[in-house]
Structure formats: C-alpha cells, structure tokens
C-alpha cells in the first residue's frame, strides 16, 4: 500500500456539497497549492494594497486621484476610457515623480495609485504597455490591487491583469 503516491482525496475533509469535496489532489497540485503559502518579497505596492483594503478606500482613492498634482478633475474618467494614451503616459510619469519626491507617506501612496492606474488604463483602453516592468509581475500586481480596490478601479485592474495573462 502506498498512500503517498495516491491522489489525496479532499472528500475526506469536506462535506459532500462543497466544491472541495469533488476534488482529488495529485502530488503536483498539492505542491502548487503549498507554494501559494509562501509570501512573495515585499513590494512597494503592498502598502497601497493594504490602504485599499480599508473601509474608507473608495473615498480616499477618489480624493487622492482628484488632486491637481495627480489626475485632477477628470480622475473619475480614467477607468471608463476618457483619457488619451498621451495623457495617461503623462499621468504615469507625474505620479512616478511624486512617489519619489513626496515626504508624506499618504501622498506617496496616492501617487502610487495614480501610477498604476495610468498603466492599467493604457493597457485596457489603448492596448499599450507604458511600463518597462515585466508583464508577469504587473499582471500579478494588478490582480492583487484589483482584489482590494473599490469599483470602478477593481474592474479596470482586473481587465489589465487578464490582458497581461494573469494566472
């Protein structure tokens, strides 16, 4: 009898009506799932993800983007495709500069949001990648941001992640 080579039946642990009950975990799937338990090295965006998980994230993000130093009065049209590729590229560069020059942590996070949303909007609405970051990293990042961001930003980030081939 060789239990270890057998597919591990999740049904032993779940009630029959749950999705888990129908799965049998091969060693390959077990390894892949176990690997998900590892934390990736911390990224600058992790603090933004945490900020977007807060209860007041929608108001905070709207207010942050509406700042004249970031997107200004037209901020709410970024997600709906109201910005040209030239304007998005300028927004990305302006925001990037602010992430480096701002001393206030909250303002840096706001600028980081502008930076990533500009890149996501360029991908979704103009099919253009205006960042030199590897696609896989961006796809993973957009998926993580989208999981906590309020609408309409979550949809924009999700679409960008899919366009970049997010797993």
């Amino acid at each position, binding site marked *: 009898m060789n239990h270890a080579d057998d597919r591990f039946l999740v049904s032993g642990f779940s009630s029959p009506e749950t999705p888990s009950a129908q*799965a049998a975990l091969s060693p390959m799937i077990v390894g892949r799932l176990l690997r998900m338990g590892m934390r990736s090295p911390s990224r600058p965006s992790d603090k933004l993800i945490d900020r977007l998980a807060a209860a007041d994230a929608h108001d905070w993000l709207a207010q942050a983007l509406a700042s004249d130093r970031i997107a200004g009065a037209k901020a709410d049209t970024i997600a709906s495709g109201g910005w040209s590729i030239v304007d998005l590229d300028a927004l990305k560069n302006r925001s990037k500069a602010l992430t480096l020059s701002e001393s206030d942590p909250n303002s840096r996070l706001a600028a980081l949001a502008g930076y990533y949303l500009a890149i996501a909007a360029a991908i979704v609405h103009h099919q253009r990648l205006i960042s030199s970051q590897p696609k896989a990293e961006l796809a993973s990042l957009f998926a993580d941001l*989208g999981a906590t961001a309020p609408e309409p930003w979550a949809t924009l980030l999700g679409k960008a992640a899919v366009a970049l081939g997010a797993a």
Partner: protein
Amino acid sequence: MSATPSPTRPRRSDVFPATQLTWIDHHLEEGPEGRGAINAHIMSIYRWPLSVYFMGTRDRWLGEPDEVINGFFADRLAKPNFLDDWRASGLHLRHWLINAFCFYLRELRRDRARRQTDGVMPSDEVVFQGNTRDLDRAFVAGLVARALQAAEHTCRRQGLAAHWQVFFDHFVQGRPYDQFVADLGIDAARAVVMARTAKKKFQDAVRDLVAKDHPSGDIDDEIRSLLEGH
C-alpha cells in the same frame, strides 16, 4: 495541565519568553478547554501521516491503523508534559509525534508479547522503520487539504462563497477562467480579482498550519523545506 498553574511547576510563559508564545502555548494556558482544541487540531492534521507511516512498518499486525492511532493519541495526548516536552525539544511536531509513536509501538509489542508468549520478548527495540518521506508527503497533502477546508470556511463565513468557487475551479481544478466564468455570471477580469481574494485566505490558512507544526521556524523556510521533500 490545570487552569491554575501549580506553585511547584513553572508556567509556560516562564519557560518560553512571552514573545514566542504561540497558538498552542496560549491554548495550553487555557487549561482543559484549550488542551481539547490542541488535541483536536493534532488529531485532524496528523492522523493521516501517522497512518501512512504505520502502514509502512512491520508492526501492521498490531492492529488496524485507526485503532492503533486512536490508542496512541489517547495515551500520549493525555500526558500532561507531552506538549511541553515537544516545545522544549525544538522538533517539528510531526517528527516529535513519530518519535513518540515508535515508542508507543514498542509498548504495544511488549504488551502483546506478555499476553501471547508468556513473557518472551520478540523485539524490544524502538525501531524507526517506516518511511519518513512518505510521512512528510502525507503531512503536506493533509495540510493542504485542511488549509483548503479552512479557507473555504472563512470565505463562506465572510460572504465570499463565489470568490472561493472561482479560486477552486481555477487553482485546484485547473480550469481556465474563460471556461467557467460565464456560468457564474462574471467576466474573466472579475474572476481574476475574486480568485485573488480567496487565494489570500488560503495562503493565510497554509501559513497558520505550518506555523503550528514548528512554531519557532521561519514559515517561508518551512514551506520551502516541505516542497523540497514533496
């Protein structure tokens, strides 16, 4: 261990610095109720790996795996110092349990020998004869299955059942998003971020279980080590 520490016996927080107190330590401080929670955790996670190990030994004649494992848990987990001794050993819990299990098998052999052969001992050694690699692989499979169950429970409790469904279909069943998201009334972009939410719950569950097996270890290092042996 009683809820009120004996004056002659140091509290766990005297033995282990407060900053290192873990889920298991805190439950031990709670007395019988906390010990019950620990025992339930141990039996749910380690029953399967111990069964795998037992089936790889020459001691299979001692009984059905469930019967032997139940006897082992009943005997050892009732000992007041069993978990204290484990924490002091620095071993992974699964390895501590296997050591104890091998001694328990020797006790069973002695007991059978006394009853069946008029006291003639066939073998009185503690033998580590099972395959510990199989044990570790069974531990990993059980841990992942338990983490799936815990994360699913968390998602359902938090109103994220649909998120869990997407995560499960994609990451466990291996189905591409575009093959099933239409059935759920969402698009792929929504599915990607929903799966991410559930994935975080699963990650937390895995890390929690890994930490309980080796509280003083670095969790990422522990996972890396488990992956190498997997």
